[in-house]
């Protein structure tokens, strides 16, 4: 077991190093590091409790030495809100990504490996889900399920898993034809050993790339839903901040309220997109040779 773990760590370190040779990888990882830092150390970096409403005198104060990003319509500190918003964004992003890629991979593996009727049925389900327009679907689900961050995560996963399933299935289809699968089968490997022991390890890089992509989609979806008023009002997310700004009609009057969440949403999504591109590039065989590594 410990051998596997140490091998895993070495390969993670090696991949990180590769990532840093890629221009997008550098940008992605740096921004990502900043955001994660802000999220983790939010309790230490904040100046005030972000939910605490303040004195009427401090309503809609532009950025100052006391309130670094200014305040909102309830005199809450925008800087602190932004910090905690990062937490929500990452929570939603990572959780939804894990769930989506998890479901998508299982379905993709089953459909790709077994083929036949099972594949037909699963793929029709996938097609059905993909047919439904994702935004209205999310809105309907969120409205029905009620405002809660976990519902948001659920909604996002339900809507996005088919895309991952499709992608994973194609890779499984091509892996299935490789000689080493036939070789393992002829040695006597059972279906489950072939799926989880032979095919799955070769699918992991793709899963990883998909997960990174899913994070961006999830963050975006949460922001949209929150902005539309379907978010969880007991939590401060960047989308909720925008929602408040919009609903109170004070967007144009208080740009300092609106710019931080938008900038942070964009920066996070961009960082993960860059990261995703970099990851899939370094996974391609021949990357090191082409770079002269």
């Amino acid at each position: 077991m410990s051998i596997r773990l140490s091998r895993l760590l070495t390969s993670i370190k090696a991949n990180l190093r590769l990532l840093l040779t890629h221009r997008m990888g550098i940008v992605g990882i740096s921004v990502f590091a900043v955001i994660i830092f802000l999220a983790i150390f939010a309790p230490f970096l904040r100046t005030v409790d972000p939910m605490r409403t303040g004195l009427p005198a401090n309503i809609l104060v532009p950025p100052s030495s006391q309130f670094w990003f200014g305040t909102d319509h309830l005199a809450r500190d925008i800087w602190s809100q932004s910090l905690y918003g990062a937490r929500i964004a990452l929570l939603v992003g990572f959780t939804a990504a894990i769930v989506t890629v998890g479901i998508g991979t299982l379905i993709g593996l089953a459909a790709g490996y077994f083929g036949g009727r099972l594949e037909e049925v699963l793929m029709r389900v996938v097609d059905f889900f993909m047919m439904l327009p994702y935004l209205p679907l999310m809105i309907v689900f969120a409205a029905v399920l009620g405002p809660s961050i976990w519902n948001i995560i659920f909604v996002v996963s339900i809507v996005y898993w088919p895309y991952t399933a499709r992608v994973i299935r194609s890779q499984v289809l091509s892996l299935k034809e490789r000689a080493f699968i036939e070789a393992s089968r002829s040695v006597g490997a059972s279906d489950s050993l072939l799926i989880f022991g032979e095919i799955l390890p070769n699918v992991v890089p793709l899963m990883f790339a998909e997960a990174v992509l899913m994070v961006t989609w999830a963050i975006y979806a949460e922001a949209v839903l929150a902005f539309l008023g379907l978010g969880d009002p007991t939590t401060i997310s960047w989308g909720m901040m925008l929602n408040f700004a919009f609903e109170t009609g004070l967007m144009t009057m208080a740009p300092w309220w609106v710019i931080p969440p938008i900038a942070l949403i964009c920066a996070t999504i961009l960082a993960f997109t860059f990261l995703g591109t970099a990851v899939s590039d370094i996974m391609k065989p021949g990357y090191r040779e082409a770079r002269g590594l």
Partner: protein
Amino acid sequence: MALLEVENLKIYYFTGKGAVKAVDDISFSVDKDETLGLIGESGCGKTTAVFAIMRFAAPPGRIVGGKIIFEGRDILTMSAEQVRLLRGQGIAMVFQAAQNALNPVMTVGQQITEVINQHEQVNKEEAWARARKQLELVGISGDRAKSYPHEFSGGMKQRVGIAIATACNPRLLILDEPVTGLDVIVQRQLLNLVNDLREKLRLPIIFITHDLSVIAETCSKVAVMYAGKIVEQADAVSLYENPAHPYSKLLIEAYPSIKGEKGELVSIPGAPPGLLNPPVGCYFHPRCPSAMDICRKTEPPMVKKDGRLVACHLYK
């Protein structure tokens, strides 16, 4: 002066770990009436060397030294446009597994006319007529110019590759492993075709292969490559009758024969060296049955012996 003269060609791949000497100071020549066979195993640098003749160099590979003189001009100093004009018309190449180099959505006739139109000003009818003639030249009915590559078998696709390469009457033809992977009867038919073409078109050919029998059937001159270097150069008959370099000898002995005595099974133990940190001295010494002390220390120089060139300490 020879048609093609390669002098001290060096091609290195620069990686993070150092320079891989894929081709390390090789020299050979091809005359108008010669067929040169370049033989060596996978990774010995023969394809890399020949790609350089066409000025195809995949980064991080770089030509770091030497000259390639074709019809008196050094290809390595030509401009990109001059090289483009040379390809197909001066020097043409048929790639390994030409079957994969054919565009699946174009008819074979179109692929031939495409080459013709690149280099010459001809109208459509003339180009198409020539395409048909090219197919007939390689033993395929001209009517099949309208067929797509997938309608041909492997051997026939290879013939199409040759038809495309010879479309503009090149002065030198390079064949990179043209029969590797083909069945034995198809292989023989293809080699017969190559020999016929060579006579009909009076075309000098460079043949790259790892298969000695292919060389034996088609080439007048042979250069044996190992780990980026040429270890022996001789005419085909002399090489077979009396191989000088131990590698050449082992290569010949390792070839199973269907005729005559069954003989002993021979294989060369070990594997070719990695070219990042090649062995000190002669690259072949770890696998050589005649290795001497000096072989482990210094690289053997190329010397003339009995009308051939050989790089081995056994000969001075």
